């Protein structure tokens, strides 16, 4: 996989995005000053644990954040257009046509009362000049393109008649029906079995090659990131703490949180029944975030400065940034890659 294509300019840039939730208990800064860029034909992985703000970042890019959540500042640029300045009606035109999204649970994102041709044709009729007949033909073609056998028949199936993997294929077909410039994939395979997951991701990679769609892939699975993304951003407590080309992130991470995550994953090539290196403690309460670095209470490298001042994303060269005052060196416990390969 290519590490860094010198693309001219990003298709989607998120600049200093802040999305906060105004709850009865106080303000939760779910996304708190995030900068991300996604380039044509490339996949940016956004990883982090529950509550880190990765999904809210994706929803913000679609302007789908529901109250009490609110985008309080920042810019979301689709090429040169700031989506945050559009009216809701203009935004509706962008969704589906320029920006597609797929979610974790394909059962709940497809309406059980309608056959799968409905969401497909709806998207096509809303965003193209196709006639109904043309839209139906195109829907059948799309189902075939996402690997659904017998698409002429399946176009009339209802969601419950399809397996989880097939439903996620339908969602991908809907999301890509109008060839959007950007696809936001939020945990697209988390609900699926591992063999089906491999098929869905191979499908996304193939379609991306064909269409040049820029993908923002939100996931908690570091394995998926390693295999599918060119660039990776790691989020913790509403902030991007490290961002790098994929190989750099896995081989030379400099943020203690990234390092801890990489060590905590059980690996097939490590000796079994040995204790895993863990990250102590847990994610801080978003209503009572620590001063300075938000990771410092769990960090083995924390120094006095970490409490006093929030570390900025420091440039480490080659597109690698990390928000840490210490930037410790990394070594994973001895490992080989897939032994038999």
């Amino acid at each position: 996989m290519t590490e860094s294509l010198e693309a001219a300019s990003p298709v989607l840039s998120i600049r200093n995005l802040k999305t906060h939730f105004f709850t009865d208990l106080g303000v939760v800064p779910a996304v708190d000053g995030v900068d991300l860029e996604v380039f044509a034909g490339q996949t940016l992985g956004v990883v982090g644990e529950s509550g880190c703000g990765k999904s809210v970042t994706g929803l913000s890019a679609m302007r789908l954040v529901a109250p009490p959540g609110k985008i309080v500042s920042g810019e979301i640029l689709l090429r040169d257009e700031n989506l945050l300045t559009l009216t809701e009606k203009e935004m509706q035109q962008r969704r589906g046509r320029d920006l597609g999204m797929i979610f974790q649970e394909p059962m709940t994102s497809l309406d059980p009362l309608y056959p799968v041709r409905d969401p497909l044709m709806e998207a096509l009729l809303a965003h193209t000049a196709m006639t109904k007949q043309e839209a139906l033909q195109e829907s059948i073609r799309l189902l075939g393109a996402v690997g659904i056998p017998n698409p002429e028949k399946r176009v009339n199936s209802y969601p419950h008649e399809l397996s989880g993997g097939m439903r996620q294929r339908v969602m991908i077909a809907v999301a890509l029906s109008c060839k959007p410039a950007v696809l936001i994939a939020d945990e697209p395979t988390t609900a699926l079995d591992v063999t089906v997951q491999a098929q869905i991701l191979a499908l996304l990679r193939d379609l991306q090659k064909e269409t040049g769609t820029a993908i923002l892939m939100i996931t908690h699975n570091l394995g998926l990131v390693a295999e599918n993304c060119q660039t990776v951003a790691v989020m913790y407590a509403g902030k991007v703490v490290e961002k790098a080309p994929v190989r750099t992130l896995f081989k030379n991470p400099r943020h203690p949180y990234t390092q801890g995550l990489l060590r905590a994953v059980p690996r097939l090539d490590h000796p079994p029944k040995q204790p895993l290196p863990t990250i102590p403690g847990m994610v801080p309460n978003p209503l009572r975030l620590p001063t300075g670095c938000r990771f410092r209470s769990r960090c083995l490298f924390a120094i006095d400065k970490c409490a006093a001042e929030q570390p900025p994303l420091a440039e480490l060269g080659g597109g690698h940034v990390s928000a840490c005052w210490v930037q410790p060196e990394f070594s994973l416990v001895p490992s080989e890659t897939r032994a038999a390969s």
Partner: protein
Amino acid sequence: MTEPLIRVENLTKHFHSGGGFLGGSASTVRAVDGISFEVLRGETLGLVGESGSGKSTTGRLLLRLVEPTSGMAYYENQELFGLSASEMKPLRRKMQIVFQDPYGSLNPRMTVSNILREGLEPLGLSRTEEEAEITRLLEIVGLRSTHRNRYPHEFSGGQRQRIGIARALAVKPEFLIADEPVSALDVSIQAQVLNLLLELQQRLNLTMLFIAHDLAVVRHMSDRIAVMYLGKIVEIAESGQIYLNPRHPYTRSLLAAIPIPDPDAKPAETSADPGAQSVRSEGCVFRSRCSFATDKCAQEPALVEVEPGHLSACHFANTLPSL
């Protein structure tokens, strides 16, 4: 650690559905379809498979949370399925389970100490002994004694799973079934809970059946692994062998599909035809998705030893090319 604590013979569970007066067609799901295995004293047997493989049903059958269609299961030398409820009672103290969802398995209206007290009930302790025992249980799962008066919702997912483990350990079981105990947890918390289970097994000399869909997690926890597919065990081997020398095509495709957190590793492979999911055919259960299948596979292969301690249910177990 050579003698089996648990022995399962030809265990089968069929679920029937449909065929009601509204006219749906009747169908039978062969959730567990004639499996046999042993769990040796002090070992962890991993049970791995995808959704619908029957792995969770197997765990529930052993505890008689569901009744089998046929087959036998022995705890030491006692057959479980023939026992009456009262005869089963003393055995329930020896066999406990930890579930996936610590949200759903803990009573939200009970404090931690009441949850644990309920678990301790069968031991018939005095009030002071109970309090001391609650303190001890919280300590061994890494919770503070001051946590005892809190309710489940006041805890994080990882802490709730620790409460679930403490509850299971209250009666000092010998055999612990862990059914997807970490799949609802984040990576950093998952590692903490896995370490706790490893430590407790050592400390309390537990025998474990560790059920999960994630082969990397199962391999990390287990001495031996049984791989299930559509109600059948297709392969059993030592954990190391499953990874280095898988002798069933399904195990191989499972291994190949796991994304490795290393950008230099070989990317996950896709094998099967997406339309062929869970199609039940005569003969080998994996036949419709198997790239090695021939006409011979219309005959169901038996689970047979291919090397000492390594069993595979494939006609071509000995001739599969090495990975």
